[in-house]
């Protein structure tokens, strides 16, 4: 594994990453889709329009319906109500087979036939998609599995399996990538590499739908974010739109001499929420719109302020806000 990581980090390896060919992404429309298993509703009345070439991140706790939504998009399960179309086709019909070849799917906790080698696994999936076997070696190289290609999948670590899973999803210039928690098991260097690959596909026009629990790493990497909560979309939009919609306060932390803390609290107490934190620190919370005015005020008020740390609303805060039970009407 150590040798394997070293290989990925080398510059020539990164240079060799080919740029994805220009693609017409597939659009996805979900129109009031619902799905229940037995009497348990898993997806409730979801309408979602994913434009060709868009990168949408699906966020939500376990059991919110992300994986079921993916299965609906792939036509593996049929909705109980509503309609799913991909590029205008119903994915649960036979005629969808031709479109299927243009979809790359990485399931959650991907697994393969352990007795086959990595190269054999990829060649098998390539044949199923009708892609020449010669396309496999560059893909294995791209995910950094060239050295391990002739080893049996049984001996692979979680991260290596995940990379093999990614390689099969990228087979044959996909027009749509559906990635269910793709970064689990990857170390930080590999995660970065994964997002580099993802960006090159996204920039080439491929539609990407990705689910993740790692909010900090998906932040700013998707165009829009959909937060799922008990089978419904509780929030949907770009990061800035969600920030606005959530209306969460900006947090500002001041560092100043301990003897000035009290006067500062008195002065700012009327304008925003003030919380003293230890000796010489104050936490302020104010609406996004008043952030600049407040900072000017602080600078004018006291020249002894040593540091100002501004923390804008991040995806973590937005997620916590929307996933905490508040369901959008």
């Amino acid at each position, binding site marked *: 594994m150590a040798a394997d990581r070293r290989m990925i980090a080398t510059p020539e390896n990164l240079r060799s990453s080919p740029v994805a060919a220009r693609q017409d992404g597939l659009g996805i429309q979900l129109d009031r889709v619902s799905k229940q298993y037995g009497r348990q509703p898993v997806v409730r009345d979801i309408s979602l329009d994913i434009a060709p070439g868009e990168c949408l991140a699906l966020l939500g706790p376990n059991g919110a319906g992300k994986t079921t939504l993916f*299965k609906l998009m*792939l036509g*593996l*399960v*049929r909705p109980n109500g509503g309609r799913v179309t991909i590029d205008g086709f119903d994915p649960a019909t*036979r005629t969808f*087979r*031709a479109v*299927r*070849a243009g*979809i790359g*799917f990485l*399931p959650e*906790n*991907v*697994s*393969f*036939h352990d*007795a*086959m080698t990595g190269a054999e696994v990829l060649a*098998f*999936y390539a*044949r*199923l*998609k*009708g892609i020449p076997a010669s396309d496999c070696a560059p893909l294995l190289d791209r995910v950094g599995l060239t050295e391990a290609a002739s080893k049996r999948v049984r001996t692979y670590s979680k991260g290596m399996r995940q990379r093999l899973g990614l390689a*099969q999803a990228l087979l044959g210039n996909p027009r749509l990538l559906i990635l269910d928690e793709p970064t689990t098991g990857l170390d930080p260097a590999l995660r970065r590499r994964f997002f580099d690959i993802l960006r090159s596909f996204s920039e080439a026009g491929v539609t990407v739908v990705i689910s993740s629990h790692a909010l900090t790493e998906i932040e700013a990497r998707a165009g829009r974010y959909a937060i799922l909560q008990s089978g419904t979309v509780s929030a949907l939009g770009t990061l800035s739109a969600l920030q606005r919609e959530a209306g969460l306060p900006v947090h500002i932390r001041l560092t100043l001499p301990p003897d000035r803390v009290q006067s500062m609290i008195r002065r700012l107490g009327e304008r925003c929420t003030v919380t003293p934190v230890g000796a010489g620190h104050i936490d302020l919370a104010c609406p996004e719109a008043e952030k600049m005015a407040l900072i000017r005020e602080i600078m004018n008020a006291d020249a002894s302020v040593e540091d100002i740390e501004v923390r804008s609303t991040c995806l973590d805060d937005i997620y916590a806000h929307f996933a905490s039970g508040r369901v959008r009407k």
Partner: protein
Amino acid sequence: MRVSVILAVKEFRDGLRNRWIAAAVLLLAGLTLAVTFLGSAPVGTTSTTSLAVTVTSLSSLSVYLVPLIALMLSYDAIVGEAERGTLLLLLAYPVSRWQLIAGKFLGHLAILSVAIIIGYGAAAMAVAMLTDTAPGDLLALLALVGSSILLGAVFLMLGYLLSAFARERATAAGLAIALWLGMVLLYDLVLLGVLLADASHVIGERVFAGLLILNPADAFRVFNLTQFDSVSAVAGLAGPGMTSAASPTLALGAMAAWAIVAGLLAYIRFGASEP
């Protein structure tokens, strides 16, 4: 079809890789040789062994072994893939469910055929070379090999049916064992019991033959033991009533019907399931 062939090739390679094929060939060849060279004593002629005797012994062996091997190959075909998590990905590919079953079937049938042809063929060749062999006996051997493969096909399809219904691999394995015991052993016992209890001969010869053919394992026996005179003479099954009521063609037809119906049911069940 192309997709099914790809899947079949993979199954066959898996069979080579995990020594499944080697094990099945060794098992069949070993038992065939044992049956041929040790099993001639009961017939009365200890000095020579004829191919007809071998075919008789082998058809009894096939009834037990071929269904067992077929069920072991097929019981986890669907539920096993689902449990490993490979089914979800496979179905996201341009692979329809009937192609998946057809691919597995072709691959497994190829494994089974190789095992039967090599296993029985090798042993039978040894007998044929050591003794005078009538051309009719060779035909009987060919018929045995062919019908063994058909018997295998029936139990492969039955295995897929179990696999499509079971929610867990272990359940499918249990069902496969139960099916094997029921069809290969218990059915005959029950039939025999009924015949013994039926002192007033309510069950006629025709009904009895029909009941025999209803079970693919017995249909296989009927086919192999009645089709060729030399074989039925050795098997002690010669009798005009028996051969007329349970014709070899009907027996083959019954087996084919089992394979088709089981395959269709497996497909319908699998098609309705959601991974």
